[in-house]
C-alpha cells in the first residue's frame, strides 16, 4: 500500500476556524481521534562492528566492506505500534447532532468522559518507508498497516529484533472527503515507562488536556493523505495526485499544503558505529 500525502501547518489561533472550514468542505463533522504511538527500533546486526571501518590504504578491500555494510544496514527502519482509542458508543450518537461541532475545550471534555469508562484501544503495527526521492508534487511513500488484535505485542516485536524506545500520543480531528483523509493533529508527550506497561497503560486518557505538548506554540499539523493499493500503478498514482492537488487548490485560502520534507520524514535508523578506535 502507498500513501500520497501533503502537509501543512495550522496555528493555534487558526485551529478552530480551520476545523470549521474543513467541516464545511467535507460536509461532515470532525471525527475526534486519539492515537497512542509506541516507537520500536531494530537492533543492529551483531557482527556489524567487527567489520573494518573506513580508512586504511586497501582501496579494493574497502569497496567490498562498504557494500557489505550497506547491505547489513539497509532496511533498518523504525516501526511503530499505533493504538487508536475507540470512542464509546454514546459519544458516536452524540456526533450525529448538529451541535457536535464544538470548540477545542468541548472536545476534550467529551474525551474526558469517554475515557472514564473503559476505553478500548485498537492496535496496529505501522511501517512507513522514507518518501520517494525526486521533485514530486506530493509525497509518496510505501506504508503497511497490520492490525494486531491479540497476543503479547512486545514479545512478538522483541523476537522480531525490535526493541521499545519511547511513546507519544497524537490527538486531533479527522475528516474524510472521497478517498482523502484530512487529519488535523498535534503531538503530546507521554511519560516514558517500560514497554509492557506502555501497551496496557491508558491511565492518561482521562486528562489528555493536561499532557505537555511537543510543540509549545500549540500549533497543529494538517496531513491530507490518500491510501492507494498499488502506488506504482501509473493510473492510480495520477488519480491520487490529481485529487490531492485539487484539494490543495480548494483549500488554498485556508491552509497551505505542500509535500513534506523528505529527510524529516525519514524513518531509517541512522547508520552509526558504536565501535571507537
Amino acid at each position, binding site marked *: 500500500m502507498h500513501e500520497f500525502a501533503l502537509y501543512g501547518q495550522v496555528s493555534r489561533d487558526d485551529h478552530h476556524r480551520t476545523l470549521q472550514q474543513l467541516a464545511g468542505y467535507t*460536509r*461532515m463533522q470532525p471525527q475526534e481521534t486519539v492515537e497512542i504511538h509506541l516507537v520500536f527500533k531494530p537492533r543492529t546486526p551483531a557482527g556489524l562492528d567487527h567489520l573494518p571501518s573506513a580508512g586504511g590504504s586497501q582501496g579494493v578491500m574497502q569497496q567490498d566492506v562498504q557494500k557489505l555494510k550497506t547491505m547489513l544496514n539497509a532496511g533498518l527502519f523504525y516501526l511503530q505500534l499505533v493504538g487508536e482509542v475507540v470512542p464509546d458508543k454514546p459519544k458516536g450518537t452524540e*456526533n450525529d447532532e448538529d451541535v457536535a461541532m464544538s470548540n477545542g475545550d468541548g472536545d476534550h471534555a467529551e474525551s474526558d468522559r469517554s475515557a472514564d469508562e473503559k476505553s478500548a484501544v485498537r492496535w496496529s503495527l505501522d511501517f512507513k518507508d522514507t518518501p520517494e526521492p525526486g521533485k514530486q508534487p506530493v509525497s509518496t511513500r510505501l506504508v503497511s498497516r497490520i492490525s494486531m488484535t491479540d497476543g503479547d505485542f512486545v514479545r512478538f516485536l522483541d523476537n522480531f529484533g525490535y526493541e521499545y524506545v519511547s511513546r507519544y500520543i497524537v490527538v486531533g480531528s479527522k475528516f*474524510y472527503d472521497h*478517498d482523502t483523509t484530512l487529519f488535523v493533529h498535534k503531538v503530546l508527550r507521554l511519560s516514558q515507562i517500560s514497554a509492557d506497561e506502555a501497551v496496557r497503560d491508558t491511565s492518561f486518557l482521562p486528562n489528555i488536556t493536561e499532557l505537555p505538548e511537543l510543540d509549545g506554540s500549540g500549533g497543529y499539523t494538517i496531513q491530507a493523505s490518500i491510501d492507494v493499493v498499488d502506488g506504482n500503478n501509473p493510473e*492510480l498514482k495520477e488519480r491520487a495526485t490529481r485529487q490531492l492537488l485539487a484539494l490543495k487548490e480548494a483549500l488554498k485560502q485556508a491552509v497551505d499544503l505542500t509535500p513534506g520534507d523528505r529527510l524529516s520524514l525519514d524513518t531509517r535508523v541512522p547508520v552509526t558505529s558504536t565501535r571507537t578506535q
Partner: protein
Amino acid sequence: MSESKTISLLIPPEQDSTSQDLQVQIQKIVAQKGHFRHVTEQSLLAQIRGKAPGSKHNDPQGDGQVEPEEDETPQKRQERLWKSREEMLERLSYAQNEILCALDFVSLLISKQSVPAQHSMSPALKDAVPAGTLAARVLPAKPLSSSVQRRLASASQGRRLASFRSTSIKLSTASSRLKIDAERETEYWAQIADLTASGWAVSRLPRDSKAIGVHFGFPESAPQFRDRGFALLRQADDGAVILDKHPIQRKRKRLGVYVSRNNTKTAFFQARTSVQKAQPQSIGDQLTDMRDSLFEEELFYEVCREARIMANQGVTTRADSVDLEVTGGCQISLVFAEQHDSDVDATPDSDDHIVAEFVAVALRLLLNAAHQQNLVRRSQKPPPMTLKSRPLPEYALIRLILTHLRHKAEATRFWKSCRDLAKPFLQAGIQVSITPQKSTGNLFESLSVDHSSTLLSEMMLPAKAGCKVSLTEGRTMQVGLATFLGPPLYGSRYETSPVDFGFSHMPILRHETEGAAVSCIRRILLLDLVAHVETLVKERNIPPESEHGPSKHWKLAHPHDGEFIICESDEAVGKMKIAVLPESISIKWSNTGKGSASKYLIWTWTARGCTKADGTAVASQVDTDFDQAIDQIMKGSL
C-alpha cells in the same frame, strides 16, 4: 501586542487651523484682504484708525498664533523660529527674484526710449538680447455696439440656461435610476433573506462570485441527484427573485402505489397531489415542488436499481413501474407517472388502503434512512484507492417492505391455522391455548443481521413474530416466525422451542413452510394429549388388583401414534387411539378382545361441538369433554 490589536474609536484631532506655514498664511491674508499690491499706506492707516473690525479680526488670529507657543519649551520655540526665519528668507529671495525679473522686463521694454533704463538691465539680459529690441504700443479699446452686447449677453445666458437644464435632467434621471435600483436590490435581498429565514440554504458559487444559488436537494443522495439539487437565483426586472428557467420545466412525475388483488386494482395511494395553480407560485412553493419531484425521481431510480437485483424474488421492472408480488394474488405496483388513475374497485372492508399508504410512506422514510446511512459511511475511513471504482450499494427499500408484507401475510395464515387447531381443544375442555406473543426471546438467536443505528433500524432487522402454546401440566412451547429477504433466510422460517414429554423430547425444530410448522404443532399437541391421558390413566390404574384378581390395566403402546392398549393378563383386549386432525380431535376405542364381538366407539370434537359414534349410531353430545370421555371409555372397558 494587545494594544496594537485594539482599534481606537476616537477621531484624531484635526490639524491646527492656524498653520505655521508661511505660504498658507499669505494665502489666507490674500483671501481676506485682497492682494498685497492693493495695500497702500493710506489704506493701512485708514484701517488702523477707523475700521476697527478689520483690525479686531486680525487680533485673535495673532493670539492664536501666540498661544501654542507658550506651551513650547524654549528649545523647541527656537527651532521653530529658526525654521520660520529660513522659510521667510527663502520666500524673500523668491520675491526678489521675481522683482528683478519684472525690472529686467520693464527695462528692456523702455530701453528703446530711455538710455538710463539700459543700465538697469541685468548683464545676463544684455548679453542675450540687444537693447531696444522690444517695443510696446497701446491699443485703444474698441467699444462694442449695444445691440451686439445685448446679443452676446442673451446668447451666453441662453447657453448657460440650456446647460443647466440638461444637467438637471441628467441628474434627475440618474437619481430616479438609483432609486429604482435601490428598490430592486432591496426587494431581491429581502426575498433572499425570506428564503434563508424559511430554512433554505442559500449560498454563493465558488466559481462565480456574483451568482447566488439555493440548495433544495438532499446532500447525501447519489451524486447525480445531489448535484441537481441546486438552482441559481436570478433577479427579475422588478427585483423579485426568480429561479433559473431550465430546472423548472421538467415534468413533474410522482410515485403512486397501487394494490391489486387478482388483477383488480383495489387501492391507490399517492404522497401528496400538488395543485397546479394558474397564478405564479411563490418562490418557496416552487422550491418545495422541485425538491419533491427530485426526491420522487430519486426514489424511483433507487427502487428500480434495487428491483433489478431482486428479480429472483418476484419483482418485475418495467419502464415506468415496478411490480412486487407479495403473495399469491396480491400485487403491489409502484408507478412513476405524471397523472395517476386513481379510481379503483375498493372493497370496503379490506385494509388495502392502509397497505398502500404504508408502502408509500415507508419507501420515502427508508430513502431518508439510506441517506443518513450514507452520511455515516462517509464519516468513516475510506478504504484504500483501487483501480476498480466502488459502486454505491443498492439501498434496501423494497426488500424491507416486501419482507414486512410477506411476513404479515405469512403470520396471518399461520395464526389462522393455529386458531383452527386450538378450537377443538377448547370445545373438548382441555387446557391448551395458543396466544400471540410479542417477542420470542430465545428463538432465532443465530439470526443476527448487522445493521447500523439509523432512524429505522428496527425495520432493517428481520421481521419476527411469535406465539406461545400453553400445554397441559404447565408445559409451554414457543413458536417463532422470522422473515427476511436476504441472507441467511431468503424468506420465512419457523422455529419451535424444545418441549419434554417424559416419554419423548422434542428439540428445537426449524420449518421452512407454514404447513410444516402447523403439522409440527399438531404433532406436539398430540403428544401433549397422550401425556395428558397417560396421567389420567395412571390415576385410574391405582386401585386395580385388590378385588378382581387378574386385572385389566391401560398401557401406553405407541406414543407417537397416540395409541393405548388395555391389557388383561398381558394380553391386549382393547385399544384406544387419540388423533389430532387439522380441525378436530378424536378418540377411537376398539375392542379387540377374542371372546366378544369387536366394538367401536369414536369420540370427535370439532369447533362446533362433540359427537359420539357408537357402532353405527351417531349422537351429538355437546357437553361431554375430553376427560369425561376418557372416563367413560375406561369405565366401560375396565
